[in-house]
């Protein structure tokens, strides 16, 4: 069975807030759910499937009860920031299998307002916890090795932030709206070598939600039709320390699976939402998905190649996690939302890709340099 063409994204909503000290986390989940339902033109009572991850207070049972849902299918897979890209694939599977017909996916939280709870650890805890692995330094380790093996430079990485900032200037909700230069990135403080402050994403409160449904229901609604045509997911870790290679992500497996199911290639893609926790995250994933050869990501992203209207591969036209929004330190949801905006023709006119009929939304979650997941979704305008 394939999910190709079986599931439609009928509703999207990105919370406009970037700082929400006056709201609860559960409330933010409810607000984004309400927003996505209104966007779709559906009511809460229509929802019969619900997907949420570790950011949902109390997990799927508590969250579904808080929202007052009566559902017949649920999934609380947590793979960090790409959870929602995984949920979208799983929702498509459930819809294709008839397990639900209108699925809600939510993400929300407030890392800017207060500290996040620590991530749960596994059997590795005694052997790793003491060494202070943080998001900054494990992505730094990937960048350091990539530079060593392929000669990738800080200037090339900086171009990714520059491209995101060009897009963010048109997003009224973006946390960082100023256009930056390569020099600005290189002159920002070093956080964890070789990553500078401007190589890092923003930290924001907020969230987002999706409504995923069947073709028949989507056609009965008023929004332009956007459907899933391919999905892939994968996991990668140090695997007992054998043949450690930090130059690639699990995207090398999730990407080809998604492209094969969709029956398209990277060359066909008109717009790309690529997870951007750090500049290096984008560069590695572009290589892993096949937009360029392994090791040539630096050359590929340089000179504005990711800027809409300028380069060959417009990416993260909302400003992405690097400039606009990275709610709950989890960027997967906003990747899907901007891809749907592009396919609907609802992106800002300054960044809208002409005739955008095929898009990719891809992300990794967890820690790229240690254990992580990847999920790739290929979306088509019907």
């Amino acid at each position, binding site marked *: 069975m394939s999910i190709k063409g079986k599931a439609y994204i009928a509703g999207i909503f990105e919370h406009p807030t970037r700082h929400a000290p006056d709201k609860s986390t559960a409330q933010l989940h409810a607000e984004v759910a309400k927003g996505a339902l209104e966007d779709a033109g559906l009511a809460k009572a229509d929802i019969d499937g619900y997907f949420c991850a570790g950011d949902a207070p109390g997990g799927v049972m508590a969250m579904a009860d808080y929202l007052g849902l009566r559902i017949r299918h649920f999934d609380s897979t947590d793979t960090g920031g790409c959870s929602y890209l995984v949920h979208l694939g799983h929702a498509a599977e459930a819809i294709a299998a008839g397990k639900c017909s209108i699925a809600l996916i939510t993400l929300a939280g407030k890392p800017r307002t207060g500290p996040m709870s620590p991530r749960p650890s596994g059997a590795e805890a005694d052997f790793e916890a003491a060494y202070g692995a943080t998001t900054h330094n*494990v992505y730094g*380790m990937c960048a350091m090795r990539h530079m060593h093996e392929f000669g990738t430079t800080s200037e090339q990485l900086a171009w990714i932030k520059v491209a995101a900032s060009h897009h963010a200037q048109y997003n009224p909700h973006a946390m960082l709206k100023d256009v930056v230069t390569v020099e600005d990135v290189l002159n920002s403080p070093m956080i964890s070598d070789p990553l500078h402050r401007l190589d890092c994403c923003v930290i924001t409160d907020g969230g987002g939600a999706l409504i995923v449904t069947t073709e028949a229901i989507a056609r009965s609604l008023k929004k332009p039709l956007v459907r899933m045509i391919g999905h892939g997911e994968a996991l990668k870790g140090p695997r007992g320390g054998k043949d450690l290679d930090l130059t690639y992500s699990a995207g090398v497996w999730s990407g080809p699976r998604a492209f094969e199911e969709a029956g398209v290639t990277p060359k066909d893609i008109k717009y790309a939402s690529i997870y951007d926790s750090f500049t290096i995250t984008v560069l590695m994933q572009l290589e892993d998905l096949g937009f360029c050869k392994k090791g040539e990501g630096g050359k590929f992203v340089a000179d504005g190649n990711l800027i809409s209207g300028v380069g060959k591969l417009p990416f993260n036209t909302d400003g992405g996690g690097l400039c606009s929004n990275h709610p709950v330190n989890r960027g997967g949801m906003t990747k899907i939302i901007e891809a749907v905006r592009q396919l609907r023709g609802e992106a800002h006119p300054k960044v809208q890709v002409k005739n955008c009929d095929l898009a990719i939304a891809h992300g990794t979650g967890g820690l790229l340099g240690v254990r992580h997941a990847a999920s790739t979704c290929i979306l088509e305008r019907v």
Partner: protein
Amino acid sequence: MDSAVKYPTPQGNPETAKFWKQTVEGKLMIKRCTACGEAHYFPRSICPFCFSDKTVWEESSGEGEIYTFSLTRKSASGPYAIGYVTLKEGPSLLTNFVDCDMAKLKIGQKVKVVFKTTDGAPLPFFTPVR
């Protein structure tokens, strides 16, 4: 990181007890599978490669080289260098580089194991070989 840093105490469990007993003796232990011949780290009872239960403890030379690293410039306990070491025996492991000039760390540099105290068993770290 220096001696002022307080490291977490390993909790241990029946599967890894031997490892922590040996760090007290200044030994870094790895596991090797006698079915497929592969060594792995951190230690498991069942081989993560061939899934055989014929795994045995082996003392590592404690020598290896830096696969990659990143220097965290600011933290509550000061700057520190996290990285991976690839041991002579094959497996790579996550660690910190200590007792050294962190600004001079290089990929490929030879390093050796050193142990730092905790309230329980000592923890393995690595330092460049002079």
